[in-house]
């Protein structure tokens, strides 16, 4: 079986001959104050094993009690994905042994999910313009997270080669919602982009619902991508692989692309695709084999006897439906109108995952174009360099709005503003603190500027004379001279005004 990327057929070649079918399974950690089945805190980053109790440690005799807020969040996610909400459903035990799972079973849902049979849609670019792709939602169900294992003593952090493992149960019992799509059948060339757009859409949606921050780098949103391939013109689905823990938007697109090419290579070689889980490697951009179907656990699901069935009343469901935020597509359309962006501009904002940030920046007082410029320019570059999300690089929408405000007031010019943003991104403090510390404010004091203007006029008498005579051409040279003398900190507009004032006298 081919193992190196170089041995794989090109994506263009593959999509000319095969059609992929995808299925996405996304886990979202809910941002509830307490865990799914006990009163322990869910706060991230606490000392290991400090946010635990008999129930989430699975101590003998302990019992689970369902977190009502988590159930509400699950139902709201279901409703936002146009799902039916079960009139009656149960939790189930998923039985398997692993040291970071306190009870050696996970309380989950099996054949009775809280939400099922819904849909959403995503927009992707094609050569013929934006295309709306519907995505069927199979189900959304509730479950509890496991603890975390830290494998120590090996080089990779994986269990292989480690000398021992440390267990932290703070995460055990944090509520998760698993959202599973129906098979996604889409034009081959679009498949990776659709996968990415779907995960992006889901992230926007849970954030808009306020049920999770869905920060993928913190594991608050985790994605498994199922891919199968079939020769064009055939209808039977191929054998699928399930690539686990693809944990960034970019990786979703890359992993799907890789798997499509790998499946093609296997099929081209006349071999059967093995049904298995795959591990995604961010560094090499490849997947490697995990468990095969034969090795897969038999989870021995059965209804959780320690919990009573859930039977959400229709009144409750309708009450929750009333709390749903604007659907993402409608929100996009509204904001585009409010901001006066072109389709292309809006698409750039959405693709950069910056819509919410731009919105917040505008709310904080910025003009839309200015907000977009910063988030898609300076800040996006920094995020890219650091491999971080836009909202994780150390600048807030309010700070961006402040920079725009200072530009508007003439306190900063473009050049200085970039230095201010750079300072904020470098962790030097708020825009005002950076201006203070770096001494970046524009020189707009007329007395100080006046002297520099007089010097420039005296130094360039020919230019001055031409301007006096009505030829505006040399004004730029005079401004440049002043700017040079003030080391770029002058307000160029004000300098121009002062030059014209003096030469017009």
């Amino acid at each position, binding site marked *: 079986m081919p193992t190196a990327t170089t041995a794989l057929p090109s994506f263009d070649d593959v999509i000319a001959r095969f059609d992929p079918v995808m299925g996405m399974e996304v886990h979202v950690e809910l941002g509830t104050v307490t865990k799914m089945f006990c009163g322990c805190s869910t706060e991230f980053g606490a000392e290991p094993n400090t946010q635990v109790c008999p129930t989430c440690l699975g101590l003998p005799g302990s019992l689970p009690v369902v977190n009502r807020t988590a159930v509400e969040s699950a139902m709201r996610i279901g409703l936002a994905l146009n799902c039916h909400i079960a009139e009656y459903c149960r939790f189930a035990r998923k039985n398997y042994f692993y040291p970071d799972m306190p009870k050696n079973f996970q309380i989950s849902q099996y054949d009775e999910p809280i939400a099922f049979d819904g849909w959403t849609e995503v927009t992707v670019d094609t050569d013929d313009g934006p295309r709306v792709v519907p995505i069927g939602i199979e189900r959304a169900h509730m479950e509890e997270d496991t603890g975390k294992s830290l494998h120590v003593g090996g080089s990779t952090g994986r269990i292989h080669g480690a000398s021992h493992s440390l267990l932290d149960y703070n995460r055990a019992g944090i509520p998760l919602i698993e959202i599973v799509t129906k098979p996604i059948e889409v034009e081959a060339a679009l498949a990776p982009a659709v996968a990415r757009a779907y995960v992006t859409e889901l992230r926007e949606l849970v954030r808009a619902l306020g049920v999770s921050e869905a920060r993928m780098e913190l594991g608050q949103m985790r994605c498994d991508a199922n891919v199968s391939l079939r020769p064009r013109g055939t209808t039977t689905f191929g054998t699928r692989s399930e690539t686990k823990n693809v944990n960034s938007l970019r990786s979703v697109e890359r992993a799907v692309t890789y798997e499509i090419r790998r499946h093609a290579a296997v099929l081209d070689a006349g071999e059967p695709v093995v049904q298995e889980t795959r591990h995604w490697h961010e560094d090499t951009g490849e997947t490697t084999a995990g468990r095969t179907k034969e090795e897969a656990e038999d989870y021995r699901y059965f209804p959780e*006897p320690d919990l009573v069935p859930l039977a959400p009343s229709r009144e409750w469901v309708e009450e929750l439906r009333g709390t749903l935020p604007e659907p993402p597509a409608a929100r996009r359309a509204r904001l585009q109108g409010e901001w006066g962006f072109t389709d292309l501009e809006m698409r750039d904002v959405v693709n950069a995952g910056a819509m919410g940030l731009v919105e917040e920046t505008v709310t904080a007082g910025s003009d839309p174009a200015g907000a977009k410029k910063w988030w898609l320019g300076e800040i996006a570059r920094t995020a890219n360099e650091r491999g971080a999300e836009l909202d994780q690089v150390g600048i807030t929408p309010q700070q961006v709005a402040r920079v725009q405000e200072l530009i508007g007031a003439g306190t900063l010019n473009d050049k200085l503003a970039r230095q201010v943003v750079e300072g904020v991104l470098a962790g030097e403090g708020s825009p005002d603190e950076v201006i203070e510390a770096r001494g970046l404010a524009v020189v707009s004091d007329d007395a100080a500027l006046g002297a520099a203007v007089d010097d420039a006029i005296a130094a360039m008498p020919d230019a001055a004379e031409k301007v006096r005579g009505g030829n505006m051409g040399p004004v730029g040279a005079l401004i440049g001279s002043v700017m040079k003398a003030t080391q770029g900190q002058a307000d160029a507009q004000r300098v121009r005004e002062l030059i014209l004032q003096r030469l017009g006298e």
Partner: protein
Amino acid sequence: MTARDLSRHTAGELAAAVASGEVSAVEVTQAHLDRIGAVDGGVHAYLHVDADAALAAAADVDARRAAGAELGPLAGVPLALKDVITTSDMPTTAGSRILEGWRPPYDATIVQRLRDAGVIILGKTNMDEFAMGSSTENSAFGPTHNPWDLSRIPGGSGGGSAAALASFQAPLAIGTDTGGSIRQPAAVTGTVGVKPTYGGVSRYGLIACASSLDQAGPCARTVQDAALLHEVIAGHDALDSTSIDRPVPDVAGAARQGAEGDLSGLRVGVVSELGGEGYQAGVEARFHETVELLGKLGADVVEVSCPHFSYGLAAYYLILPSEVSSNLARFDAMRYGLRVGDDGTRSAEDVMNATRGTGFGAEAKRRIILGTYALSSGYYDAYYGQAQKVRTLISRDFAAAFEQVDVLVSPTTPTTAFPLGERVDDPLAMYKNDLCTIPSNLAGNASASFPCGLADEDGLPVGLHVMAPVMADERVYRVGAAVEQAYVTQWGGYLLDQAPEVEERQ
């Protein structure tokens, strides 16, 4: 009251004596600790006795009384707690090597309620490992002996609690009943044991055997004592999702009413499927006499058929092991309890395997394997799924029967206490002990066992099994108290007064 008297009195009498100042709670507690010291070497009812904690709790009751505080109806009365219920101040083993030495960091809800009521917990009682068995022979710490005949089983799994009562080592005890583990030991030791309605008593802190069947309940020597204890431990608990949020039935009131000896208007159904072949003659004789007695007390007695009860045992032995296989998965050496083979060279998986291999006894392993199989992909529908259907049919049998009658009755067990060792190698014979008691666990309704005499052939106690609808627990108390009152009059005392004296060993 002499020290010997103190251990012979009922819980109600002791509480009254403490409340009036006739004796102190410390004296009552010390008398029972002395009795334990004298006889438990031969009985082995207790796995752990905490004299200091018990005396401190008793001193606290005395201090509260001295300060004029209002005491509950069982304040200052000692109790024996089945070792399957978590206690923050005592080890909790569930009768298993795999939990040897484990000290839970929390009290079960029952324990909290007992402490709040001023009940004195003397110690933890012996049991079949993880409540799986009918003889306590599956305890990792050696069997308990029946005080009526130390060579015989005290029943199980709660044999320790029942034997403690029958040998006057405590006037009250807590048991748990998954398929009969309160009622069958009560029957074979001549004591009273009540399995409340499922959800009537919190399971928080009860180490699970089979979650959908387990129910803790009161054990005592008299019906009124059981009722008083029932009222202390019962009631809704937000920590147990299956706990019923309704008022506790008036069981003490029903026991008082029953003791007046008038069952007029009560409709009693004799379950036709629970008797005949396989039932010991002496058991059937005492049972039928007691049914006649119910008639004499004014009850209308009819025969009722519950056709699906015959399938109860088979369904039970699929549902129970299925839940056991999952509930016992957590005992993996990672967080608490026994750890075997952790020498720095073995993987976590190897240590788990070694620990479970060493820590679980044969019956626990048998049921884990049965349950794992029954839940496996491809077998689930045929085993677990079918068993759940039988469970529904049994519930319907009960519902139909309770359309016609107020309570159902049967013998509690097909036989009296058998000799230790007799059925150790015959699991099916052992399982049949619970033939009559299992249907109530499957359906979740209330039921209880009351002493109804001694079998002629072996002179050992026989139990009357009374079953009532869900949340109609008071009916079993009414019937039990009426029968008790009539027999006390007839025999000139409680059945236990006829028990041979347990030899005192120092």
